[in-house]
């Protein structure tokens, strides 16, 4: 081997070594990601596709699955109870998502400024998210109790009539939305606070010098500046609203009169109470499609003028 061949061999070796061990190599990041990737693939990716397979079968966990093609999807779309669950879930999203975005945004604007007790207020608004879903359900079941509950008690003091919050078909959904907003405000509040702090202070100063009022500041500086945060918050809030289950199940069990029965509850009962796994998977995939459509729409609308 002559000197040029030898050098190029050494150089190639060095290149390979740089590729693998060097600073720009993908090796180290990959190594650190592997533990997470294992969990991700095993517990999230594979079940998703396995679920798609199951949705094409009839399976009750005890006997081997039988392939039935799209029959489950057809049965589901013909099921009155599925449509009722779907309508209830959409209603919940329509009520919960806007409130869960607007209220944390408002609160974030309030506690962002240098007000007195800012930290206390922030902690107070954020802390409910640390309570587990069942606890929230039980707690608020007691708040809503028509006889001993705090809510009717204070309503009475204000001279307003107490309601049968959880046992009246109309109020039950409202009550659940209130509970959910109270519980999850903290998430979006934190995100909005972070987003607000990313907006350069100079923009506000400049606008104020130009004579912009508070509303104009909000419209022309805050909102555009928050666009990425808003997109993220909206998408995740809508997705989470579609997946509502825990607190509803604990508080009303889907009642009264199936008026608060949600899609995930339908999946749970179909799969784990009546052991129709194929059908439950089909409902889950239908839910996924619905959520995917909404998410794409939101990306389209919100990040349009990026």
């Amino acid at each position: 081997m002559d000197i040029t061949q030898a050098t190029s061999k050494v150089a190639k070796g060095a290149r390979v070594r740089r590729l693998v061990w060097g600073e720009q190599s993908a090796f180290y990041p990959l190594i650190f990601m592997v533990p997470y990737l294992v969990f991700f693939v095993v517990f999230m990716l594979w079940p998703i596709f396995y679920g798609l397979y199951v949705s094409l079968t009839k399976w009750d966990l005890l006997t081997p699955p039988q392939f039935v093609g799209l029959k489950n999807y057809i049965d589901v779309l013909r099921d009155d109870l599925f449509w009722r669950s779907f309508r209830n879930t959409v209603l919940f999203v329509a009520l919960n998502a806007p409130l869960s975005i607007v209220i944390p945004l408002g609160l974030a604007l309030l506690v962002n400024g240098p007000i007195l007790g800012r930290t206390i207020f922030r902690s107070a608004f954020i802390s409910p998210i640390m309570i587990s879903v069942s606890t929230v359900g039980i707690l608020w079941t007691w708040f809503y109790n028509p006889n001993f509950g705090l809510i009717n008690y204070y309503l009475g003091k204000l001279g307003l009539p107490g309601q049968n919050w959880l046992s009246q078909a109309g109020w039950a959904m409202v009550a659940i939305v209130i509970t959910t907003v109270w519980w999850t405000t903290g998430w979006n509040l934190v995100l909005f606070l972070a987003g607000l702090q990313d907006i350069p202070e100079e923009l506000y100063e400049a606008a104020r010098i130009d004579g912009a009022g508070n509303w104009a500041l909000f419209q022309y500086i805050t909102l555009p500046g928050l666009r990425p945060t808003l997109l993220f918050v909206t998408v995740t809030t809508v997705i989470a609203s579609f997946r509502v289950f825990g607190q509803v199940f604990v508080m009303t069990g889907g009642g009264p009169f199936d008026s608060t029965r949600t899609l995930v509850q339908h999946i749970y009962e179909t799969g784990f109470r009546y052991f129709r796994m194929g059908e439950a998977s089909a409902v889950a995939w239908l839910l996924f499609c619905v959520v995917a459509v909404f998410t794409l729409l939101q990306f389209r609308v919100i990040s349009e003028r990026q």
Partner: protein
Amino acid sequence: MDDLRELIEQLSSGRISRREFIRKAFMLGLSASAIGSILAACGGGAGSTPTAGTSGGAASSPSPSPSGSPKSSASAPPPTPTPYKPQSFGSKSAKVKIRYWTILSSVDGIVMNDLVRKFTEENPDIAVESLQGLTDFIQKMQAAAISGTAPDVALVRHTYIGPFALKNVLSELQTTELEEAGIKAEDYYPEVWKFTQFEGKQYTVPLDMHCHAMLYNKKILQDNNVSVPTTLDEWTAVVEKVTKDGIIGYQTFALGAGAQEYLTWYWYGIHKQFGGEMLSEDGTKAAFNTPEGIEAVKWMKDIQQKGNPKNAAITDLARTGKVATWPDGPWISTLYFNPEKSPAAKDIDVVPLPQHDPKHKAVWGQSHQLALPRQQSQDQARREASLRFIEWITRHSVDWAKAGQIPAHNSARQEALQSNDRYLMKLRAWAKQLPYLKFMPIHPAILEIMPRIAANVEGAILGRWSVEQGLKQAENEVNQILARSGQ
């Protein structure tokens, strides 16, 4: 911890109100969520004050089995603790240990555990780990069958047999092993022995039967100068007359429990009185949306609106003598007939349920059956022990009758119905209806069908939708379920 235990006992026996419980529990240092979960778990008598609600309160669980505490007499051994955790009976050195699961909660579970303890005392070579009042029983049984952790003996309602057998949750009982254990068909009430057979195989041994009867407050009826009703029309008339001045005339069984099986039980009996059927002969279609079916639910709605227009929960009101009539099962005996638990006990009595047509009597009936769930690896010794256990329990079910169940075992039933025990004498009213008990069919999808009927009938009774619409919805949903399960 002991203070808390005692507090819970007092709450579930109704000796203290929920408000008192909350107050004392706070003083003991419990957090609000802990108190909330205890109250939800106890499910004790729906509310201690009348709830002026449009449905019977957001009942987290109905009280078909009442939340009573053990009745302790001076000479009896200390009462078995309120069942919810597994209890072990028998000596540690016993050769065989079997596991036993039931759906029974509160009083039922306590009496059952007493029986289990007696069994282990008389059969020292067998130890039993008993889990009473298992929540989510249906799911847990199926999950246990899948994972191979099923108990050796399980107590099921007869309606569970079809679904469980089809899913291979139960193991078949061979004639030879039944003979060896001394379990014979002729020892049991034939109506419920029928349920032990499914698709030509035997899966269970009957333990008991129960049904509805009408409880009533003698004093209220006397004060209003009305006699005890024997027909549905008389019942409505009585209720109309007595419902005033804070007295509730009537309360539908399990109203407010929502989409569960309990209201369907009561509905089934009344529906049968009007001559209706639940499912078609071949079990593929709903058959209850008929003119008779509509009439039946209309009667249920009418008497509910006349007797309890505000749909207040009645457990505490009945105990204190404020409810005139109501249908219930015999499991409430130790609650309503016990002066220690019910101040109005001496006024409360029971008669067979009024009938729509005395020539075509009907009343809802159900049977508890003992089964051997399928095991992953069959242990012969445990299986024999389990069958001995079943045979012993059914033979001694006269003690089980004290929890308010009619024994299926013939000699135990005769003994129970001839006894002079205070509660067993009341049981006779329920037992009088044995000749015309109507049991729900053993259909593979029955467990899914019952909650749908309950949800829609409840909506009709509470005025959420009309009777016709409610039955139509129920029929659609049931037909969809049947169409899906029929492959």
